[in-house]
C-alpha cells in the first residue's frame, strides 16, 4: 500500500523520507499534527514525542540545563548597604536596650533588686546557711537513704530544745542564730 503511494506522489516521498529521518533522530516538531493512518509506526512514536514536549517545555522553561538553572533564582543583595543605611537599621529605637523601670531597694539589706524577683544578696546568704545545715544533716545521717521519719529542728548556740521540740531530730549549728531565721 505504501509502495503504491510512493510511486504516485514523489514530493510526498521526499517528505516521508525527511519525516522518517527526523523520527529516527527522535524529534518531530511541526509535522506531528499530520497523523494519517498510512504510517503505522508513526502515531506510536509521534504521540509521546509530541505531547510531553509542550508540557516539558513549560516545566523546564525556567531551568534549562537541569539543576544549574536553579541558581539563577537565588536571592542575593543587589548593592552594598551603605553605612548610613546600616546605622538606621542598627540604631532603630526597637533595637536599643530599654531602660528598666522595675528596680527597687531591698528593705532588708539595702541592695538593689527587681520588683518581682528575690533580692540576690539575701538569697545568697540564705543559700549559704542552708548549705551548712545540710552538711550537718549529712554528717548526722552518715550516708544516703538514712533520713529519719521524724521532723528536724535546727538549734544554734546556747539554745535548748523546748517541749514543742520533743520527738524531733535536733541539728546543731555552732554559731549565733541569724536574725532572719526566727525560732517558732
Amino acid at each position, binding site marked *: 500500500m505504501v509502495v503504491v503511494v510512493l510511486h504516485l506522489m514523489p514530493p510526498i516521498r521526499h517528505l516521508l523520507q525527511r519525516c522518517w529521518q527526523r523520527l529516527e533522530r527522535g524529534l518531530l516538531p511541526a509535522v506531528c499534527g499530520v497523523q494519517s493512518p498510512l504510517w503505522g509506526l508513526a502515531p506510536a512514536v509521534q504521540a509521546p514525542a509530541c505531547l510531553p514536549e509542550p508540557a516539558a517545555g513549560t516545566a523546564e522553561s525556567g531551568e534549562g540545563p537541569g539543576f544549574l538553572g536553579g541558581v539563577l533564582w537565588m536571592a542575593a543583595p543587589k548593592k552594598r548597604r551603605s553605612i548610613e543605611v546600616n546605622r538606621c537599621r542598627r540604631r532603630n529605637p526597637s533595637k*536599643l*536596650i530599654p*531602660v*528598666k523601670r522595675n*528596680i527597687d531597694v531591698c528593705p532588708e539589706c539595702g541592695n*538593689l533588686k*527587681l520588683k518581682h524577683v528575690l533580692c540576690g544578696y539575701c538569697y545568697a546568704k540564705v543559700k549559704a546557711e542552708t548549705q551548712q545545715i545540710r552538711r550537718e544533716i549529712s554528717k548526722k545521717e552518715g550516708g544516703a537513704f538514712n533520713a529519719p521519719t521524724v521532723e528536724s529542728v535546727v538549734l544554734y548556740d546556747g539554745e535548748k530544745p523546748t517541749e514543742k521540740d520533743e520527738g524531733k531530730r535536733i541539728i546543731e549549728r555552732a554559731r549565733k542564730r541569724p536574725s532572719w531565721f526566727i525560732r517558732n
Partner: protein
Amino acid sequence: MELSLCESGWFAAGSAFPLSCIHTSTSLQKLGKWEKKNRIVYPPQLPGEPRRPAEIYHCRREIKYSKDKMWYLAKLIKGMSIDQALAQLEFNDKKGAKIIKEVLLEAQEMAVRNHNVEFKSNLHIAESLAGKGHYTKRIRLHGKGMFGIMKIVKCHYFVKLVEGPPPLPEPRKTGFDQAKEYVQQLRSRTLVHTL
C-alpha cells in the same frame, strides 16, 4: 676619666651622693589620649568665676567583646546619673554590662580619691563610648576543605564622669513650636534689590 651616668648610678650603693634612681622596671605601655585627659591641670579659678565641675576620664582597653554590642550598653547609660547607670547595668544580662559596671565603680573611686569629688553619688556620665580594639585573624574550617578567616574581636570602653546632677533631657520640639518657627522665618524675610 668621666664615668657615664649609669656606671655612677651602679656605684651609688654606698656613696654619700644621692643619685637619681634608675627605673629598673619597664615603663608603662604608651598612654592613650583618653588616659592623658586626666593629666590636664587648669590654672586656679578667679573668685568671681562659677565653679568648674570635676571631670574624670576612665577607660578599659582590649575587652574581649564586640564594639557593636558594647555600643548598645554605652548608649543606654549615656546621660544618666552614676547610681542609675549602675542599677541598669546590674540587671542587664549582657557580658559587657558586668565589665562596664566594674569600670564605672573604678572611675567613681578614682574620682573620690584623686579628683576631689565630695559625694560619690553626685556624678553623672557625660560621655560613654565604645571603640574598636586590636583584631586577630584566625582560620575557621568549613566542610569540603573550605575555610574562612574569622576575626577575634576586641573593643575599648571609654567613660567621662562629671560632677553634678545629670542635665535634663532636651524637651521634644512640638508641632506648634515648629510652626511658630516657620512663621517667624517668613516674617524675618526682607526685600532685596529694591528701593
